[in-house]
């Protein structure tokens, strides 16, 4: 069995792209600087010219470039999304990562030779959904939702005939991706439509003397004692009261780290590992990519998982292997 795991790494800026390529990425993924991608944050993403330069840099070093066009096109305004796909084909990206069925149909019809991956935002969690996307749009790889355990991934891979890619590090959606309206309920800004979740433009921190309150829109998401670090108020990682008890009802402010599970993921038939974090800086990307390069190489060689040395990055933040362990549920 081939245990080589492809490492797919985030690039929010040209500097991060260089860092990912130089530290062992097999592919980088990125988006255009607009609402066509799911990390539509201020100061992030690529112009057409920057993408061209990034492609030249990556391809010269044997690294592929994937373009995420993974929001859902606005009704009555398909232009920006179609143009993103058209430009991806013209510039020569290695694949587009798509979620919307209408856009997949457009890409398959107009650019049949442009490789298509299914975004995690499509929430394809079962064989019939995945086989539909393969049969209808000839997608070559499916990014699996972060709701599946490793045994479920293994069973799934036996029922489909397409590559699978899974998230192994970084932010963790606890809801099925692409099917969560919590952000737009509280802020009017939506991952599916605007490419943002719990956007910084709607975040406030209020110092109330004995506590620091973090708010998203009009809602208190968390409150911290004076000596506690105030975390970012991502809605599903907040503290709420249910049944009279305050708790991290949906998820603690943890992020995903499945580094120790790479051999199991390879054995489950996974092709590629994805690192979340297009909003992260160059230094972060360099360090995480280098660490996962070592881990992926060790898994391929059958060696024990190496020490990743990511403590400095993850200090103060708990890590979880998330749904990959069924006990998470």
């Amino acid at each position, binding site marked *: 069995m081939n245990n080589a795991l492809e490492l797919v790494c985030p690039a929010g800026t040209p500097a991060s792209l260089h860092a990912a390529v130089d530290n062992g990425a097999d592919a980088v993924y990125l988006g255009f600087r607009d609402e066509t991608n799911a990390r539509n944050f201020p100061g992030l993403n690529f112009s057409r010219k920057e993408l061209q330069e990034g492609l030249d840099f990556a391809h010269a070093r044997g690294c592929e470039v994937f373009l995420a066009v993974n929001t*859902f096109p*606005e*009704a*009555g*305004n*398909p232009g920006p999304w179609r143009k993103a796909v058209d430009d991806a084909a013209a510039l020569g990206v290695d694949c587009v990562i798509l*979620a*919307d*069925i*209408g856009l997949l*149909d*457009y890409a398959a019809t107009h650019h049949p030779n442009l490789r298509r991956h299914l975004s995690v935002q*499509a*929430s394809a*969690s*079962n*064989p*019939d*959904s995945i086989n*539909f*996307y393969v049969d209808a749009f000839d997608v070559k790889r499916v990014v699996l939702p972060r*709701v*599946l355990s490793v045994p*479920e991934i293994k*069973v799934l891979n036996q029922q489909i005939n397409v590559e699978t890619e899974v998230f192994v590090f970084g932010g963790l959606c*606890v*809801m*099925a991706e692409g*099917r*969560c*309206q*919590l952000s*737009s*309920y*509280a802020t*009017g800004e939506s991952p*599916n*439509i605007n490419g943002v979740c719990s956007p910084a433009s709607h975040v406030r921190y209020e110092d109330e003397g004995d506590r620091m*309150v973090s708010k998203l*829109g*009009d*809602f*208190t*998401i*968390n*409150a911290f004692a004076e000596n506690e670090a105030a975390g970012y108020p991502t809605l599903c990682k907040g*503290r*709420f*009261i*249910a*049944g009279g008890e*305050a*708790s991290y*009802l*949906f998820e603690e402010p943890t992020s995903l780290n499945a580094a120790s599970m790479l051999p199991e993921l390879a054995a489950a038939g996974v092709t590629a590992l994805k690192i979340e974090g297009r909003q992260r800086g160059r230094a972060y990307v360099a360090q995480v990519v280098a660490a996962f390069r070592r881990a992926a190489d060790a898994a391929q060689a059958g060696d024990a998982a190496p020490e990743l040395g990511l403590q400095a990055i993850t200090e103060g933040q708990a890590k979880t292997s998330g*749904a990959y362990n*069924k*006990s*998470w*549920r």
Partner: protein
Amino acid sequence: MNAKLTLGPVLFNWKPDVWRDFYFRIADEADVDTVYVGEAVCSKRSPFYAPHIVDVIERLQGADKEVIVSTLALIMNSREMNELRDTAGDHDLMVEANDVSACALLAGRPHAIGPYVNIYNEGTLKYFTDRGAARVCLPVELGRDAMAALVKDTPAELEVQVFGRLPLAISARCYHARAHMLHKDNCQFVCDQDPDGLEVETLDREPFLAVNGVQTMSHSYQNLSAELAEMQTLGIKHFRLSPHSVDMVAVAGIYRKVLNRALSTEEADEQLQNLIGDVAFSNGYFHGAKGVDFVLADQH
């Protein structure tokens, strides 16, 4: 145009006899045209009321209600996959797909698509209508601009939820079990303690969300009574009432009167507020605002 009132699937874990009696009363008394029956949220619940499904469907059809079988939104294991294949394989029933897998299984014959399938634009809508989707209940975060664009040139009849808590998210994780410090595999079906969902407040005791097993809903009740006329003008044909433990026969009567211009929206809202008690309304998504907002008629 003839506006239709529909009753969405019961999203909560009601006791089986309550579930059955609810639908019997809907059949006998409620002024709705279409009733959705079936489990959209958690596959562990359906075995409890399964013995009543045939009787419920017969009673509804006997009362001249159109019956559509609703299906699971998040399908994650072989058991759920096989149950969906069985439901889709029954060609005597009109089925509502709530996952892309169900759309694929139902392709080639008339079917409905529910709000959990991401149909955000004309391209996706056309893809599905070309394959038999006859009715589409739009995702909850779409507002009037999207409705206006989607309703143009589509053969499908479009549906919008006008009453009840909004389904905002679905997860592999059960938050009801988690709130009770239980594991999902041993959940003891604690979600049956909350017939309208478990209320979630912020740390400042502000009502925010409601947990319904693996589903997270709005605390507010969507109420588009004041928007019915505009949606009719846009071309929306079906208006969905999402079941709650309040008197849904009365709720249906109120919306029917508004549709028939027999009741002002102010009176309707007052009557609805009396029914649901001290819970806020929302209609923000329709107006392109935050989903939680309630935009008053004179601010439209």
